[in-house]
């Protein structure tokens, strides 16, 4: 993406709290109508960045542009950006309708028009007829929807969401994820979403910025983050990953290869192999990229191993498999396509087994 079609453009932004650097030279662009997530563990700077977009924190240096406008001099109450707070911050002294209409005061709407807008919002969040309820009569999920409606009624350029699903139980959270995604498509507003839950970020987002220590480690689509992580940290943070030490082999022919510990020599197309001959690398492989067979398969690459441990999880089984020349066992996740697969999981502990995988599914990373 070029910065010309960027709706939000963050340019070389730093943020210091005293001597502590919360944001370390972040630059990125967010497109109009995009569902964009900031993902990271607590303390990574994601909430600080969100609060800078809302105007609650200023940039120590750098600039944030929203819709082409530099925002440094615009206080929060004059930004066309609204936020859904982690605690929802529903005003307890107002009823649902007055909460939703809180931001409409300055528009001085006629009573009927105001009511119409409130009703429209209550319909949008699937709580029709809740206008007269008091805030303390609402459940967590309902509060979350009111907070959404209160922000969306102002038609903001950007909606900021600070871990809005964190306080909900698992089932409600999954339901709200689907609703939130549908809602965003319906209203077409740019969403910037902060979460520490990688699954949630994957489910909801068009693109995700993975953050740590005030920096963006990788900015990519969910698919890109999962299939082509740029570092071991990213690979570990998004899902599970097996790591193998390897050495690059290029003999001048058209085909390159990596000599991987425990797995043998794996052919790799030269265009993927930017490193010189003999360079140490890490090879990463997701647990579900392996195929387990009791007999030796005909496909290469393949390796014989012994099941050290297995767990039956219903729709899939997890195996930890010892292979020669590698210390840690290889984690393998295998779908249970038939009932017999379960028996396989149960029966195989301590028994020899064959692992195979497609050479294209490996990820090549810098050596540690």
């Amino acid at each position, binding site marked *: 993406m070029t910065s010309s079609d960027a709706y939000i453009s963050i340019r070389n932004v730093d943020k210091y709290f005293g001597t502590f650097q919360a944001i370390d030279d972040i630059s990125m662009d967010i497109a109009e109508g995009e569902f964009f997530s900031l993902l990271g563990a607590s303390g990574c700077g994601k909430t600080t960045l969100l609060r800078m977009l809302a105007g609650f924190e200023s940039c120590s240096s750098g600039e944030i542009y929203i819709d082409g406008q530099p925002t440094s001099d615009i206080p929060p*109450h004059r930004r066309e950006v609204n936020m859904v707070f982690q605690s929802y*911050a529903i005003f307890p*002294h107002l009823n649902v309708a007055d909460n939703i209409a809180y931001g409409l005061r300055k528009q001085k709407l006629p009573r009927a028009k105001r009511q119409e807008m409130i009703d429209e919002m209550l319909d949008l969040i699937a709580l029709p007829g809740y206008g007269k309820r008091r805030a303390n009569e609402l459940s967590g999920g309902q509060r979350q929807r009111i907070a959404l409606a209160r922000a969306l009624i102002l038609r903001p350029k950007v909606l900021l969401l600070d871990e809005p699903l964190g306080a909900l139980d698992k089932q409600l959270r999954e339901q709200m994820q689907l609703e939130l995604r549908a809602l965003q498509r319906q209203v077409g507003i740019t969403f910037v979403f902060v979460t520490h839950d990688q699954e949630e970020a994957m489910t909801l987002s068009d693109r995700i910025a993975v953050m740590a220590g005030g920096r963006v480690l990788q900015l990519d689509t969910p698919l890109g983050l999962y299939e082509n992580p740029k570092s071991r940290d990213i690979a570990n943070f998004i899902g599970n990953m097996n790591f193998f030490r390897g050495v690059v082999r290029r003999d001048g022919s058209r085909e390159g290869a990596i000599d991987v510990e425990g797995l043998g020599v794996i052919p790799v197309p030269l265009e993927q192999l930017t490193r010189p001959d003999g360079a140490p690398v890490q090879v990463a492989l997701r647990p579900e990229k392996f195929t387990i067979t009791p007999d030796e398969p005909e496909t290469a690459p393949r390796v014989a191993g012994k099941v050290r441990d297995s767990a039956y999880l219903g729709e899939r089984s997890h195996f930890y498999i010892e292979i020669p020349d590698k210390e840690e066992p290889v984690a393998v996740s295998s779908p249970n396509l038939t009932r017999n697969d379960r028996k396989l999981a149960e029966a195989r502990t301590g028994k020899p087994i064959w692992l195979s995988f497609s050479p294209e599914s490996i990820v090549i990373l810098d050596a540690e």
Partner: protein
Amino acid sequence: MSDTSYIKRPNRPLQVYAVIFLVVLYTPVLFIPLFSFNDSIYVTFPLTGFTTKWYAELWTRAPVWNALMNSVKVGLSVAVLSTLLGVVAAKAITRHRLPGKSAVVTFIMMPLVIPGIIFGVALLVLMSRMGVSLSLYTVSIGHLIVCLPFAVATLLPRFEGFDPSMEEASADLGENGWWTFWRVTMPMVFPGVVASLMLTFTISFDEFIMAFFLTGTDPTLPMYIWGQLRFPQEFPSILALASLILFVSFFMVFLAQWLGRRGLDEDI
């Protein structure tokens, strides 16, 4: 095992202690209303008969009304001013990054432990140095110092007790600081404000030491009572007056406590 928890189990010695504590604390005070209904100008047992004539006499005495009005004037202005300052102080303490915050709070609370006589003498010296003649205004200044810690102590938990993101949400929804204060902050802390008004009024109304040093020609009610103690024949009326003050003060403090605590748990 009993079905009540360890903490909630009834504790006999503790109950006895609590009863003794309250009896020792309030028995002397109860003699005042008791003798105010006694048909004798001498405060001695045995009681000689029931009468309400001391209350009736009080009703007709102009200086009492005068002193009462003085105390109410001082009390109202002190209550409003100290609560106003208390709101500002509590907001600053809880909402802003304040260097030396705990020191500031300590200094605000200091008048609670500094003897009133020291503040009284200090203010008296200051006023006479500055050539300010003593009046109800000087009394009010003295009372303000006494009441401010109570106002802050009443309001601080209210401000601490609600999520700062409420105010951020208001700003985010387009309201500036002024409107945020009136549309969010004030409604949330309102019970605390009422409690502070009532508590500070009561304290100012009952205050004697500051008034003793700083009163000019217009006495407050406690000053009037002090002045009347020299005349034995006036004493039963003073008891009647004291009983009334006692009753109103109790009522106000209870109400303030109740209001101050109401909703503090459920709002968050």
